[in-house]
């Protein structure tokens, strides 16, 4: 196997892991709150700008600063759900097609992106962290260090989330709400509080991905859009609301993008991903792997 091939496989796996992790927040919010969060990409952008400014202003290690960024974004998500989404959710509780929420999150998307445009201008910014441009050499294969770190931290965070959901009482309440909100509420679960927490978790996860991108990706107000499309495709590929589905879907997209490009023009790989996405939508709308929503 040629060096370029090996490098493209590694790169595909690393990017794929990050893509999958990126889709996790979306799938979590959909699985529990049953809200399609169109502002997902904007929250990635918010996470990126938070990470960027943290680095520029404090020069704390970008990975260490996650310990502060995560609670900040959790609070943001919690309040967005509590203040903005909850009232609409309540008023639409009996509506069969709750469109209001979709319009709300889409509005949030436009609002956040344009707010960033207003505050920071349209320019691209790159954070010169100690990890930026750092490479590992394994034999003759070059591996991007910040991508590898992002991949590992993504995996670890997913593990923590998994334990939180499976092993704690809070996790049980969250899963119960995801499975059946009426019954959960009959069992004494304050479902609106669980919604707040879930949305907060989702936004925090999304923000983490943003912050993980900062050492190797330029930051600009519309950056979320690029990843947003990927995240939505991955979530549908893997099955809406499924955690392993999102991770596997991410890996598949990452590999197609990276390895596929070695056999065809780069423009085509983007198209190929969409073709697979449409096929899955048509043939297996429950997701490629048929994972049940295992909340």
């Amino acid at each position, binding site marked *: 196997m*040629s*060096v*370029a091939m090996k*490098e*493209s496989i590694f*790169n595909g796996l690393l*990017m794929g892991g990050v893509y999958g992790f990126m889709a996790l927040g979306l799938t979590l919010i959909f699985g529990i709150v049953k809200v*399609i969060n*169109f502002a997902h990409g904007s929250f990635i952008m918010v996470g990126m700008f938070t990470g960027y400014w943290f680095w520029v202003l404090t020069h704390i290690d970008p990975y260490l600063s996650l310990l502060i960024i995560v609670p900040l974004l959790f609070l943001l998500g919690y309040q967005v759900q509590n203040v903005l989404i909850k009232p609409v959710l309540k008023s639409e509780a009996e509506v069969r*097609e709750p469109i209001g929420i*979709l319009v709300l999150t*889409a509005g949030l*998307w*436009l609002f956040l*992106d344009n707010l960033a445009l207003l505050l920071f*201008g*349209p*320019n*691209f*910014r*790159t954070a*010169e962290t100690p990890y930026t*441009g750092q*490479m590992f050499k394994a034999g003759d294969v*070059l591996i*991007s260090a910040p991508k590898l770190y992002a991949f590992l931290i993504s995996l670890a965070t997913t593990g923590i989330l998994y334990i939180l959901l499976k092993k704690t009482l809070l996790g049980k309440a969250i899963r119960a709400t995801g499975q059946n909100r009426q019954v959960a509420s009959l069992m004494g679960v304050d479902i609106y509080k669980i919604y707040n927490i879930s949305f907060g978790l989702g936004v925090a996860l999304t923000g983490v991905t943003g912050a993980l991108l900062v050492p*190797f*990706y*330029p930051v*600009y107000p*519309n950056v979320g*859009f*690029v*990843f947003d499309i*990927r995240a*939505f495709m991955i979530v*549908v590929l893997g099955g*809406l609301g499924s955690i392993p589905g999102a991770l596997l879907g991410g890996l598949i997209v990452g590999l197609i*993008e*990276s390895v*596929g*490009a*070695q056999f065809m*023009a*780069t*423009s085509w*790989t*983007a198209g190929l991903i969409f073709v697979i996405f449409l096929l899955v*939508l048509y043939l297996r*709308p*429950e997701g490629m792997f048929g994972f049940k929503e295992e909340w």
Partner: protein
Amino acid sequence: MKRISVIAVLLLIFLVQCALCSGCAPSEKKEAEKKEEKPAAEKVEEVRVGILLPFTGAVAIIGEHNWKGHELAAKEINEAGGIKSLGGAKLKLIKADSCSDPKVGMTECEKLIVENKVVTIMGAYQSAVTYPTTAVAEKYKIPYIVPVAVKDDITDRGFKYTFRLAAKASWWARDQLKFMMWLAEQSGVQPETIAFVYENTDWGKSTRDGWLKWMKDLGLDQKLKIVLDEPYPADAPDMTPVILKLKEAKPDIVFLVSYTGDAIKLSNTMAEMKFDCMALIGNGAGHMDPVFVESCGKNADYTFSVAEFAPDSDDPLVLKVRAAFEKEYGYPMPEPSVNGYACTYILADALERCGSTDPEKIRNALAETHITEGPATVVPFDIIEFGPDGQSIHSSLVGVQVQNGQFKTVWPPGVAPAGNKPIFPIPKWEER
């Protein structure tokens, strides 16, 4: 089935949102310009000129740069006593927002002509907007001066009222090749292979066609082997796959067509993956954006590009104009402002010569333009003249290299400041 329909609805909404997002806010209200235009008398108060540019949308910042070039020139002209053959009439620029959208552009163009009664239009930066809006102006027989928009077809349709100062897209491709030939010649190192890496929309693809055509015309198709022909989506999150292909193909020369974001990602990834070659030659835009150099830092060093404007020119006129711009707006004059500035002076020159606000007479005066001195020659070529198709015949580009984070003009020898030397072949990553 329910799931499918939910997903379908979602997708639909998503698409609508995409459309909304890339659309724009309603264009700003023109200042209430309801005064009746007096019939074209010898003495006129003001000459109304429409400036159609993208003031909102993705390239709003470039629209703004363009506008400031026009505004600065108009201010200078008016302060120097306006158009003398019209009794000191002032230039009045009227803003119109194309929203980066061809359809909006056409409506705005029509409004400028019918409601604002402009006698000339200038704009519209983007080829996609300029192409249909010049047709609107042609219909109304209103002269349309194009400072920046490179699509060849704009002046290839035999229009009588369209005049373009910018070089055509295929000329950009030509000058990339000429620049490369000059680099090879003066260094004595002959490249044998070349790779094309370009963004995959109209601009990138037409430039690639230009490379192929000019390689034949310049007799390079036998000497240079094309080892990679790679269109890429400018919004791809990860450029590593493209760079890996370059590493496999091992070209001596890489020609690029990139916007800012992708130029940054490409250069950073090249540095990471240690891709070495003799030269990277960009096609302006992203590779001439100060943000590119700022963002890539050392990784941008040694990158070549062709450009419309020598950023470090030591020509006294250029220095004067740049100083005036920086004084007025507080930042260095960016590339798109220069042509806007020059075009406003070209119009003033035509008005001066015809002494009338009749669009037909202005058109005829523009067609006879022959400017060899004055502020309009801030552009890097000496004579401004329009061919029968309205294309400025002498438009040509300069070659620039990033050296220590600064754009240095190195080509052609007559334009490049003394002391600027190209570094070719560029050093390998290991040696930097």
